[in-house]
């Protein structure tokens, strides 16, 4: 049912954890659907230099979370924001149709983290 890439990221998720002094934190999902993702980013010179996640959810949720952390590391915020849930799924060689909707929310969580970073920065100005 899942692609090899999904299974690889599910079994060996990259960048699991928290960043205690993160510059931005984003959450997406809800317990009703059974998928919640939280993402922490560290930003330097407009670039994401570190990223970590924690996810409660199915294999698709874990794999998309893991995949997005790989995709964004080193990217500028604008580049990172351009990533969509669809492009994450594609990077994983696709997801089962039933999983496209609920469990594919890593890009949204990331956007929330970037928004959080920007809001904090605005406040600190």
């Amino acid at each position, binding site marked *: 049912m899942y692609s090899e890439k999904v299974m690889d990221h*599910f*079994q060996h*998720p990259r960048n*699991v954890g928290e960043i205690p002094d993160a510059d931005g934190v984003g*959450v997406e999902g*809800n*317990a*009703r*659907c*059974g*998928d*919640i*993702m*939280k993402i922490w980013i560290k930003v330097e010179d407009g670039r994401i230099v570190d990223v970590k996640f*924690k*996810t*409660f*959810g*199915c*294999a698709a*949720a*874990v794999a998309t979370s893991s995949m997005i952390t790989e995709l964004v590391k080193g990217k500028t915020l604008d580049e990172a924001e351009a990533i969509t849930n669809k492009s994450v799924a594609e990077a994983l060689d696709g997801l089962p149709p*039933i999983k496209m*909707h*609920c469990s594919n929310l890593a890009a949204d969580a990331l956007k929330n983290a970037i928004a959080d970073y920007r809001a904090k920065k605005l406040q600190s100005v």
Partner: protein
Amino acid sequence: MNAVYLDHAATTPVREEVIEAMLPYFKDKFGNASSVYSFGREARKALDQARQTVAEVLNADFNEIVFTGGGSEADNLAIKGAAWEYRNKGRHLITSSIEHHAVLHPMQQLEREGFEVTYLPVDDQGLISVEELANAIREDTILVSIMHANNEIGVIEPIAQIGAITKERGVLFHTDAVQTVGVMDIDVKKLNVDLLSMSAHKFYGPKGVGALYVRKGVRLIPLIHGGSHESRRRAGTENVAGIVGLAKALELADAERSVVVPRIQRLRDRLIDGLLQIPHTRLNGSRTERLPNNVSVSIEFIEGESLLLNLDLKGIAASSGSACTSGSLDPSHVLMALGLTHEVAHGSLRLSLGRENTDAEIDYVLETLPPIVERLREMSPLFSS
């Protein structure tokens, strides 16, 4: 360790003896049981023998057994068949909120057709209140359907007590016994039921064949109209091999029950006790009113599918609630009915045992599972250690 199969509530392998019993009816004795010549007569004899066996195991009469294409069909035939037949007597039905979809969805269809359905709640142990049920019966109630044991949490409902009430009140009573036939001793007279469904593949018989006990005098409008098979209650050339397989599997289960079930129950208790050692874990459903082969636990802060897949990678086949709901994203209606929150319901795990499971397998599960849970919890934003 070879694969460890702990999903017997979803389905079971067909036993060797059952396959042996079925094989002749594919090729040598393949005749149509309704025909007059010798070819058909052998099939007819096998069919009669199978019906007799099933009737005897259930303490029912020969003509009270209707073979169907599975448990879902038996449930649908019982519920829609009775509702349609007796619609002029009344349009009110009673069931529980933890029934299998093969009961709930026919009920919902009947609601669309103008029937009214009361869905009784269960307590935090998963049990129906007999008193509440008695109070729910109205003048226009024609049918009560309460499952014998729940497929997700294994809770055994007080069927005989409910049946005593429905009998007194003159209301038909159906029980979905798909999870209990083959595991528990079933006596339709003692259970006070009018209709009882079973499915062969839950007790080491083939898939695609089931049976409905229909108490003498109870009429049903068929789901499948056509030839006069099954005393006009279910048309279609009889699945002789499948029916022979069902009867053989039931006969074997019945004969071996007193030896096999206590062994399974002991394994179950080891498993429950072991799993409850994991922090933030609770047993779903009553510990005492429980199928001897069912373990259902909620493991907080983690999600069921991830857990299942990790177990699968270690060779352990389990389930996270009903097999049928695995295509859905909503947490199980049964666990929600127990009062669990969404998060906790999502973290449920069902391990259902069978006759081939061993102590060594239980050891393996109890070794394998805790580190997976730990790893998933470490990854979970809901968990703070």
